């Protein structure tokens, strides 16, 4: 378990936090993370401001139902102005919308779902292919599960786990709407998943403090410092389960929508100490702007140099919510 490290807040950060009603300790940590991720001074300020600003809206095309071109044509016919993103052409940026995307026939047909562009990164990085067995731990509401099923062309098996009954209901409805037939659903915590070494790939989009969602959720501006410690324990348990079900040589993608290194790089470092090795994420920029890299130095923790292979999204710098994503390979075995 990793408790949140308190960072000193300079006068500029304190003034900014007071003016915009952020926790001072949180703002100081954000600046420290941004600096260590390679963001220059002006980008750090853009990042802080980005936490208070609306991020663009996106929808992701479901490959099991249609193609991005057909979806874009249909949405344009309804008066939407959409543009395929550079990072993932299946994700369309909504520039102008006459109605909510969720109210369109295309949404009900399962052709599309709202998804922030950064949220598409974990499944992209996972790179599942047809015929594989993939575990998606903490799967609800199912957008990444559907993305993985689409990459697999609905061939193979995706074992999706979700402990919360209400979130399981959303997961089921989204997968049904999306037309996925290759998904097995299990309603319990990841730790209760039976068996060992049966997954070729595992996706862990872990429950987290969600700091990266601040642009749309102001309540997170006054986060409680003890939440980091509590959630890092939950993340460790899920990663232990991920390690158990992943076969030797398999790929594990770990992602969160928070900035806290205790929930990101520190968790990944634990896996590296168990023999995993990091691999390039394969995404270095978002809409032409270089992503932040994983940080390699944080008080109280030893973080290896290869942690820089992980990638970070920063609101205000990138047109997205905040995200962290790392790709690792378990030692031994043949590659999937």
């Amino acid at each position: 378990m990793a408790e949140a490290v308190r960072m000193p807040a300079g006068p500029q950060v304190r003034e900014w936090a007071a003016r915009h009603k952020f926790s001072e300790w949180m703002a100081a940590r954000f600046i420290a993370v941004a600096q260590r991720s390679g963001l220059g001074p002006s980008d750090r300020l853009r990042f802080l401001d980005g936490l208070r600003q609306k991020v663009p809206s996106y929808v992701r095309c479901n490959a099991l139902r249609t193609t991005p071109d057909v979806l874009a044509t249909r949405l344009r016919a309804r008066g939407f102005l959409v543009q395929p993103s550079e990072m993932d052409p299946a994700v369309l940026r909504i520039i102008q919308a006459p109605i909510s995307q969720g109210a369109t026939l295309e949404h009900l047909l399962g052709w599309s779902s709202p998804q922030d562009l950064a949220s598409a990164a974990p499944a992209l990085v996972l790179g599942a292919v047809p015929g594989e067995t993939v575990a998606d731990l903490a799967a609800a509401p199912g957008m990444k599960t559907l993305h993985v099923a689409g990459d697999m062309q609905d061939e193979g098996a995706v074992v999706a786990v979700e402990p919360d009954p209400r979130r399981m209901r959303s997961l089921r409805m989204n997968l049904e709407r999306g037309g996925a037939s290759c998904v097995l659903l299990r309603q319990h915590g990841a730790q209760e998943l039976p068996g060992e070494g049966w997954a070729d790939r595992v996706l862990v989009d872990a429950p987290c403090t969600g700091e990266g969602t601040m642009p749309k959720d102001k309540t997170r501006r006054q986060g409680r410092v003890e939440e980091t410690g509590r959630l890092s324990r939950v993340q460790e348990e899920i990663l232990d389960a991920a390690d158990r079900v992943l076969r030797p040589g398999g790929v594990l993608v770990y992602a969160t929508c928070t900035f806290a290194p205790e929930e990101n790089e520190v968790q990944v470092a634990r896996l590296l100490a168990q023999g995993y090795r990091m691999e390039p994420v394969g995404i270095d920029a978002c809409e032409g702007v270089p992503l932040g890299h994983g940080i390699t130095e944080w008080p109280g923790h030893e973080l290896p140099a290869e942690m820089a292979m992980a990638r970070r999204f920063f609101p205000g710098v990138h047109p997205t919510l905040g995200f962290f994503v790392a790709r690792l390979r378990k030692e031994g075995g043949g590659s999937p």
Partner: protein
Amino acid sequence: MIRAATQEEEAIVRESLDAVQRGLFSGFLSGKRLAIVEADEGVEPPGSHPPAQGAGPETQAGPRRAVVLVDPAVLALPETLRQGAAGGLQVGILEEGFALDLQGSVVLARETRRQCIRVNEKATRLFLYGRAILGTSILEYDPSLRFGDHCIVTNPRREALGIGRVVGSFKGARTAVEAVHDLGSYLRDE
């Protein structure tokens, strides 16, 4: 528990679909396998996202079993993983007979025009709110449909919108089809 359908269960589904159109069953499967999800501890029992009420032959009392299409790889997973699990794409319910579900109507509409009606854009919008369809809104229909039959409602592009029941003439400005289960439920049930 998710398991492969037995020969008897598969035969029930096959007969039900072949009664609509001979040879429909293999197109309906499209390379997937038929599986059954039984109520079990773990995932919510089937039917919690309610299928069309009475959408198909009347059934006798018996345990409800969800009929799903699954990729063969899912059925090849160890039983320990399939025990207490749900999954696949639910296409209907089996209770002595086979009753088509919402996604079952989507799959079926891709394979046949039997039991389908095609409605105009206005009726499409209203149907997705659970409203009935007037005869004047129907562009095309399967002439074998009779009063009381269930039908698949499609939009002008023949995209399935859900399941209806014939309650009146397909000509004229009166109610012809009442809504039984439509895609709009994905928003209403959220």
